[in-house]
């Protein structure tokens, strides 16, 4: 399909032979058989979601720690797939970003696929100090911009990271929001603003 899938598909067999995988191949194969047999579509969650894409397969086979040469290739490939706004503007409205960061909806079998998807950000990250109900799977993003500034490079990094977290950390726990089609250009811009705008409560 994409260059990304192609590379990862090439990397996966390499990985299988190059090192003893962290995952036990026999039980992993049995697990995949069971998963394919014992799930049914419901709502928008169709069974094609059960198939690994190339990157997922590499992470699953290696216990989320593929060797460096594979990591570098896949990360570069994921980064190459990031689509930037045509107007070159990467920063939007932090207030809209905050609303989006609050919402955890989308993609489950109970979600209406016609409605927009949330950013899910507070599920895993501390962000604005006003929201004290935040998760800890990801690092705190409080004062993200205050600590790093608001340069063009930082903006590009944050936009890219939200678009595809795996471009920087191949087996990151964070979803690839742009790549997955969950968040569009405007939404990612608004989240960049939430983290980087000096007026955002994140940086106060």
């Amino acid at each position, binding site marked *: 399909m994409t260059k990304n899938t192609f590379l990862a598909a090439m990397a996966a067999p390499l990985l299988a032979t190059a090192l003893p995988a962290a995952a036990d191949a026999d*039980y*992993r194969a*049995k*697990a995949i058989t069971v998963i394919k047999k014992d799930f*049914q579509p*419901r709502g928008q969650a169709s069974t094609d979601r*059960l198939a690994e894409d190339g990157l997922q397969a590499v992470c*699953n086979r290696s216990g989320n720690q593929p060797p460096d040469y594979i990591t570098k290739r896949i990360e570069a490939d994921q980064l190459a797939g990031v689509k930037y706004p045509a107007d070159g503007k990467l920063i939007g409205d932090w207030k809209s970003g905050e609303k989006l960061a609050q919402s955890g909806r989308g993609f489950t079998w109970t979600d209406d696929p016609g409605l927009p998807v949330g950013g899910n950000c507070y599920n895993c990250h501390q962000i604005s100090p006003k929201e004290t109900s935040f998760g*800890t799977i990801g690092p705190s993003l409080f004062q993200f911009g205050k600590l790093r500034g608001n340069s063009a490079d930082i903006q590009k990094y944050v936009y890219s990271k939200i678009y595809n977290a795996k471009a920087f950390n191949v087996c990151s726990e964070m979803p*690839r929001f742009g790549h997955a089609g969950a968040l569009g250009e405007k939404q990612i811009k608004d989240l960049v603003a939430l983290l980087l705008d000096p007026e955002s409560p994140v940086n106060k």
Partner: protein
Amino acid sequence: MRRHLMSSLCAMLVAGGVTAQTPKKPAVKATVKPQVATPVTEEKDAATLEFEKFRAEMEDSNPAELFEMKGEEQWKTPRGPKNVALADTCDLGQGVGKVEGAYVKMPRYFADADAVMDAERRIVWCMVEKQGFKFDDIAKKPFANANFTPDVTNLVTYVAGHSRNMKIAVPLKDPKVLEAWKIGQEMAAYRAGPYDFSCNTCHGSDGKRIRMQNLPNISTAEGAIKGVQGWPGYRMTGGVMLTHQWRMGDCFRQQRFPQPKYASDAVAYLLTYMIGNANGQVYKGPGIKR
């Protein structure tokens, strides 16, 4: 979710039939939280303690007991097209009709079914094979909603009640059970779907939260028992009695996966992994969940 807890507790106490045991401690409304930017572990603990306190106060009138009683009656009464009682026909691994300690020793391998089965799957198997119910009829509406509680849920709750305060003892020495555990372990690590999530994304390491909800690490005994404790449970959200099978499905929902089939190998193997990891921990019986 957290912020809705106390209000839903209140709603339940008012609407439900348990007003007699209204906790003396005033149900604290979602208080305005202090604006601090540091991790709020103290606050999290306070919230958890609040719920624990409530749960303790509910112990004398645990709503799950109502379902245990219904389940006991259904266990002992001849039912189904074959008009036999599970008490006279169903072997949960401890001998026909024996429920004492059966729940904490499942999942286990059952030769008559040639399958590793968790408690709910085994009870369904008995209902189909012994009583003559149709699997598809049971699987059509396997879990409770506001207006309906499946018989299986009552039965599971009854059986689980007879393992109260017993140690979890999944027979992992049985090679078939061990194989199920190993497949379950791989399933828990399997990342897929639009968000690249696996079970382990949330439940594979210590001390993580989604929002204010603590996430047990099911690879450890201490974490795994938290994933087992309180199921089957009377859930505040919606006021319904739900089983461990239901909970596994809800995890997959949030993982953005499709739905695991009811009473399937997939769920049985994952339960073998999680409950097996909790071996040696004390199961407190059917409970109350947020």
